[in-house]
C-alpha cells in the first residue's frame, strides 16, 4: 500500500489515530480554498457555510486524491455533507461515523463500536489490517503531533512564537493536512525558532467557536488591539488534543479520549445542561483573558442555541463578550474589523 494515500475528513471528532493506524495520512478538507460556489445546487442556502465550502471544493475537484473520506455524525450539517459527498464524489468512498452527544459508559461503548466499524471501512479502502499494536502506533503518531502543537500553543500564549497566533493557526493547518512525518519535522522547525523573550501586547482575549482556519483572522484580532491568549476551536486546539490509549481496549480508550476532550457545543453533559457557558467562563479565567470572542460559522445550530447562555454567564462574570458569525471566507472576517476595533477600544 502507498503510505501517502490520504483520507479526507472535516470534523474535530474524527479518529485521526485510526487513520494513522490504517497507514493513511489524514487530510482535513479545510474551507479555505477559493473555488466556485456550486454547493447550493445540492444543499440549501441556510446550511453551514463550512460544509458548503467543503462541498464546493469536492465539486470543483480542488481536493487532492483521496482513498476515502470519513465524516462524523456531529450535527445535521455534517450528516448532510456526507449525503452530498456521496452524490457528487462517487469516485471517493465516504463513511459516516456516528457520534454520541452525551458521554457515559453506554455511549462510549457505542462509539467504540463505531470506531471498530470505521477501522473495518479503512481496511476495505486499502488500509492495513489493524491490530492493537498498529492502533497504539497510530495513537503515538497523533500524540507526537499533538504534543508539539501543545508546546507551540504555550509559546504563542507566552508571546514567544514568532508570528504569534496567526503562525500557530498556520501550524494547525499544516498538521491537519500534511503527512505526519512531514508535519512533525516542520513543527519541530517552528518550535526551534522560539523567541527567548516574550513579545506583543494588547488586550488578552480568549477565542472560542468552531471553524476558523484563516491565520489572517488572528492577524485581524491582533491588528484590532487584541492579544489572543487561548483558543478553543475545531480547527485549532480541539482537533489536536492528546489521546490517552491506556487500557486493555485501545478502541475504547480512543473513544473515551475523543468524547472526553473539550467539547464542541454539540456535545454536552446531560447532568449539567448548558455547561458550555461555564466552560467558556472557566477557560477565559484560566487564560487570564479580559474578554471573550466567539467565532462561529453561520447557521450552526449547536452554537446558535447555546450562545445566549454563554452571553448571560459572561455578563454575570463581568467579562466582555463579542459574538461574530461568518461564512468561512476572509471577506466575511474582514467585515468584522470595525466591530472588533470598537470592542477592544471599549476595554482600553
Amino acid at each position, binding site marked *: 500500500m502507498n503510505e501517502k494515500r490520504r483520507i479526507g475528513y472535516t470534523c474535530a471528532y474524527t479518529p485521526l489515530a485510526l487513520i494513522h493506524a490504517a497507514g493513511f495520512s489524514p487530510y482535513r478538507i479545510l474551507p479555505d480554498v477559493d473555488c466556485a460556489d456550486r454547493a447550493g445546487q445540492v444543499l*440549501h442556502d441556510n446550511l453551514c457555510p463550512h460544509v458548503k465550502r467543503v462541498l464546493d471544493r469536492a465539486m470543483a475537484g480542488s481536493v487532492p486524491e483521496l482513498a476515502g473520506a470519513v465524516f462524523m455524525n456531529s450535527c445535521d450539517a455534517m450528516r448532510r455533507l456526507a*449525503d452530498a459527498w456521496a452524490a457528487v464524489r462517487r469516485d471517493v468512498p465516504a463513511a459516516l461515523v456516528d457520534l454520541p452527544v452525551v458521554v457515559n459508559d453506554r455511549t462510549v461503548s457505542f462509539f467504540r463500536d463505531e470506531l471498530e466499524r470505521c477501522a473495518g471501512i479503512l481496511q476495505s479502502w486499502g488500509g492495513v489490517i489493524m491490530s492493537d499494536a498498529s492502533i497504539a502506533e497510530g495513537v503515538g503518531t497523533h500524540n507526537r503531533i499533538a504534543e508539539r502543537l501543545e508546546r507551540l500553543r504555550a509559546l504563542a500564549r507566552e508571546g514567544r512564537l514568532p508570528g504569534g497566533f496567526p503562525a500557530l493557526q498556520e501550524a494547525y493547518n499544516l498538521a491537519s493536512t500534511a503527512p505526519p512525518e512531514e508535519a512533525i519535522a516542520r513543527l519541530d522547525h517552528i518550535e526551534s525558532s522560539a523567541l527567548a523573550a516574550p513579545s506583543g501586547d494588547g488586550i488578552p482575549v480568549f477565542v472560542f467557536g468552531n471553524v476558523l482556519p484563516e491565520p489572517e483572522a488572528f492577524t485581524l484580532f491582533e491588528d484590532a488591539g487584541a492579544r489572543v491568549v487561548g483558543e478553543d476551536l475545531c480547527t485549532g486546539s480541539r482537533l489536536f488534543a492528546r489521546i490517552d490509549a491506556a487500557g486493555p481496549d485501545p478502541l475504547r480508550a480512543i473513544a473515551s479520549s475523543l468524547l472526553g476532550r473539550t467539547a464542541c457545543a454539540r456535545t454536552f453533559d446531560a447532568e449539567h445542561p448548558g455547561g458550555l457557558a461555564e466552560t467558556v467562563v472557566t477557560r477565559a479565567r484560566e487564560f487570564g483573558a479580559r474578554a471573550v470572542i466567539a467565532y462561529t460559522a453561520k447557521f450552526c445550530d449547536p452554537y446558535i442555541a447555546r450562545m445566549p447562555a454563554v452571553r448571560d454567564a459572561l455578563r454575570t462574570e463581568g467579562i466582555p463578550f463579542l459574538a461574530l458569525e461568518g461564512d468561512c471566507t476572509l471577506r466575511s472576517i474582514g467585515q468584522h474589523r470595525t466591530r472588533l476595533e470598537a470592542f477592544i477600544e471599549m476595554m482600553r
Partner: protein
Amino acid sequence: MMHEFFSNLESGLSKAIDAGEASPRKIYARELARLGTRLYGGNGGVAWCGITAPFDLLNAMGVTSCFVEFVGAMLASTGVVGSFIEETDHMGYSSDACSYHRAVMGASRKGMVPEPAFLVGTTNPCSGGLAVIENLARRFGKRQYVLHIPQDQSGGNVRFLAEQLRDLSAFVAAHTGAPLDPDALRRAVSNTNEARALMAEAYEFAKAVPSPVATKDLANYGIVMALFLGTDAAVDIARAFRDEFAKRVADTKSGVPNEKVRLLWIQNRIQFKNGIDDILAREYGASVVIDELNDITWDAIDPDEPFEGIARRSISIPFNGSIANRVAHLKKLAREYRVHGAVNPCNWGCRQGTGARGLIEEGLKEIGVPVLNLEVDCIDSRKFTEGQFRTRIEAFMEMLAGRPSPWS
C-alpha cells in the same frame, strides 16, 4: 390563559361531537385539546421531549409528554407566535435558527411553557431540537435524559437504543415514584399496534384514485399521532380516519371535487393559516394526498420485546439516517400514491429537513415527479407573502398541466 384556551377548545369540540357533528379531524383536534389541557393544567408531571421520544412508554408510565415543537406549532396556528419569536431576538438567539425552536424558547421566557418534571432529548431528527431540550433543562433546572437514536438498525444499534429505553424507564420512575408496570406497557403496546394497523388501513384508502383525502384531512397527522401512541385515544382517532376514508372510497367521494392533481407534501406543513390549500383545491383541483410522515415505517411491536420494537420504530423514521434512505422513501410514497408533483416548503432554519433539498429534488426527478421548492418559514407568519406563493404555485401547476402524468 393556555389552559383556558385548551379547555374551551375541548369543551366546544366535545359538544359538537356529542351533537352528532363528529368528524375524524374533530376527534383528533379534541385529543390535542385534551393534551394541551393536561400540559397547561398546572398539575406537574409533564415531560418535554424530542420528536422521536417513546410516547407510548411515557403514556404507559402516566406521564403527560409532548415534543417541544408542538408549542411553536400551536402558537403559530393561533396567530400569536410573532411576539414569542421576537423574544428570542432579545436573548441573542440568531434569527437563522428554526422558528419552531425560537418560538418555544421565547415562550419559555414569557412563562408560556409549563415547568416540566423532567425532559427527554432525542438526537433525531435534529441538532436544534436537542439543543432546545438542553436549554429548557437549564432554564427550569430539571434533569434530562438524552436518547441517542442510531442512524440505522445495523450491528448492535437496536440493542443500544433498547438499553437506553430501559434506562429511560428507570429515569422516569425515579421522578414519578412509580416503577414501570409491565402490564401497563403491554396494554400500551397493544394500543400502539392496533392504532398502527388502523393507520395503515387508512393510508391504503388514501391511495385510491381519486383519493378520499383532502389537503387538510391528514395535515400533521403522522407526527402528532406519535404523541397518543399507547393510548385508547390513538385507537379511536385512527379508527375514525380509517372508517371515514373507507366510506368515502365506497361512495367514490374524493377529498377534492374533481381531483385533477395529486401532490406529495415533503416534511411538515405550514402551521399558520394560509390560503395555499384553497388555491390548490379550488383553482386546480389539486390535493395533498400524502405527507412524508404519514406512513408506517415500522413493524408491529412484539409485546414480549417492547423496548426493541420501540427502538426499531424510532430508528425507522424517514428523517433518520442517510438522505438516500429518505429519498427512497419519498419515491415509494410517490409511486404508491401516484402523485404528479411534490411540494417541499423548505422551512427556514431547518437544517435536517431542508438541508438536502437538491438531493431530494434530483431523486424524485428520476421517477418523473417534479418538486416545488418553496422558501417559507412554517411557523413565522410575519414572513409569509401569499402573493409570491401564489405566483410560484401557479407556475408549478401550469408546468404540471403541460406534462404527462408519471403514471400514465
